[in-house]
């Protein structure tokens, strides 16, 4: 992370704080007065049915879209309305629902490209560590377009790690991957959280959510309808209504 941003960090603030954020697309309210925060090393799961506003919330936090109302604070800094690249340099990094790799570049170059705005001197060493952690050293010289779907998810996750972020947003990072790859990703999340990295995780895999998330936030129709640990959420009537239509 850039030195300037480190200096601007406000001690005592949560790494990520979303305050009363709203986003409308024409007449549709995608995110409606959502507030949540995540502490250092915490893994917060964001769940909810399709179209509930989870990915839009991620996009607002990472700067892909500007909120119509509310504030986004990263490390205590108000980053609302900042461009994506500036928010990324401040310490947030994300994956996408569909892996967005640089398909004409090798795995090695995909990872190094993630470090060009950071500590370039240490980039190659970090790349080796990342390749080892995610068990993808054997495909380092392959083009991204030649990888399987699961390998692409790993490389995208690796690219996020190369940014040396404070907050990581994972959008369905284990969706459709082989159980072995899922375990590699879970292991990496557990390892990284111990270093103080905060995770916000969109996930439909309830086993994974139960295994790694400290806390869950449930969204439906753009709003947070429930918040708490897994057991609390599983027995929450609002959640059952959102997912199963039960009243």
């Amino acid at each position, binding site marked *: 992370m850039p030195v300037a941003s480190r200096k601007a960090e406000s001690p005592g603030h949560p790494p990520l704080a979303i305050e009363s954020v709203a986003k409308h697309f024409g007449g549709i309210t995608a995110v409606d007065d959502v507030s949540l925060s995540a502490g250092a090393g915490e893994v917060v799961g964001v769940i909810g049915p399709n179209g509930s506003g989870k990915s839009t919330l991620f996009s607002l936090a*990472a*700067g*892909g879209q500007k909120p119509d109302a509310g504030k986004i604070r990263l490390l205590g800094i108000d980053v609302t309305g900042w*461009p*994506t*690249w*500036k928010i*990324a*340099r401040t310490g947030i*990094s*994300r994956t*996408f629902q569909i892996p*967005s*790799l*640089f*398909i*004409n*570049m*090798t795995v*090695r*170059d995909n990872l*190094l*490209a*993630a470090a*060009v*705005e*950071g500590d*370039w001197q240490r980039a*190659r060493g970090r790349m080796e560590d990342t390749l080892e952690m995610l068990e993808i050293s054997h495909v380092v010289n392959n*083009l991204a*377009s030649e990888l399987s779907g699961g390998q692409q998810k790993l490389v995208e996750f690796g*690219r996020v790690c190369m*940014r040396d972020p404070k907050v990581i947003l994972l959008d369905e990072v284990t969706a459709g991957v082989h159980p072995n790859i899922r375990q590699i990703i879970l292991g990496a999340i557990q390892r990284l959280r111990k270093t103080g990295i905060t995770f916000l995780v969109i996930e439909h895999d309830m086993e994974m959510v139960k295994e790694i998330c400290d806390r869950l936030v449930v969204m439906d129709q753009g709003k947070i309808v429930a918040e708490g640990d897994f057991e609390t959420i599983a027995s929450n009537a609002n959640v059952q209504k959102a997912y199963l239509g039960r009243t």
Partner: protein
Amino acid sequence: MASKPVQTPKFIVRAVLVGAMAIALAVLPAFIDPYTLRIATGALMWAGLACAWNIVGGYAGYISFGHSAFFGIGAYTTATLMQSDVGASFFITLLPAIVLAIAVAVAIGGPTMRLRGAYFAIATWAFAEMLLQLVTVLDFTGGTAGLSLPAYLNEFFFYYTMLIAAAASFVGVWLLIEHSRFGFRIKALRDDEPAAESLGIRTNLVKVQSFALSAAITALFGSIYAYWTTYIDPHSVMGPEITDQMVVMVLLGGLGTVWGPALGAVLLWVTNRYIWSTFGDTVIYLPILGVIIALVVLFLPNGLISLLVGRQRGKELISSILSKL
């Protein structure tokens, strides 16, 4: 790429090949007649122009149809400053030509490179057309009559000037794009702009930088060309066929590769001159060109360079860039 080991047998072979090519190009004028020397000078110019266009089209993935404007800016700046009332020497004119091209590229690239695909292509084409019309009506550019420059009838001088400019362009691009952080930035934005932004890459800035670099090289060759031909008019240095030729040369040789544009430029220019000398001033060159391009895009998506180095990554690259149009 920079991440590969520096000392490998492949590296040594390449270094020997490049060194041999440099020596061959340096001694070439001693073994050819003046007409062939003129063709060789033209080939070097087009190689440099193709290299310049490739920065934006091949590496950044933005198809520009406005590069003739920068060629014209270089040519007209040199021609204007070398008129008898100003009397600047040729080499003095190069710096203002390049600076002006960079300034215009930043002014035009800033807003237009926020557009994508066909919108960017149309915007750059419109900009070039606008500038073409402008030089046609301005007094100091000589209007439709154009401008004459002081004649310097030394083909060796122009050959070596083009050679140095082309070599500097290729080496510069090779270092900057294949061996520096800038290369990672520009290729990342080409492949996936939102993903590049999410990694902290300031894509709008990188795009304008690449456009400005490309414009600067194009203007440099425009300046040399003006002094070489001793006469320019709006269509000879700003006509759309200048950009078209750059695009075709890069596609033929290899989009987004270092040496592909040089290969495409030399082959096309030599073919062009051969047809011209054999059949006279005919349009037969154009259908032949069209067939060659169609065949290359269909069967050699990474251009002719892939026959030499066997790269397999062209299909995705060319389709991902052209699909934006």
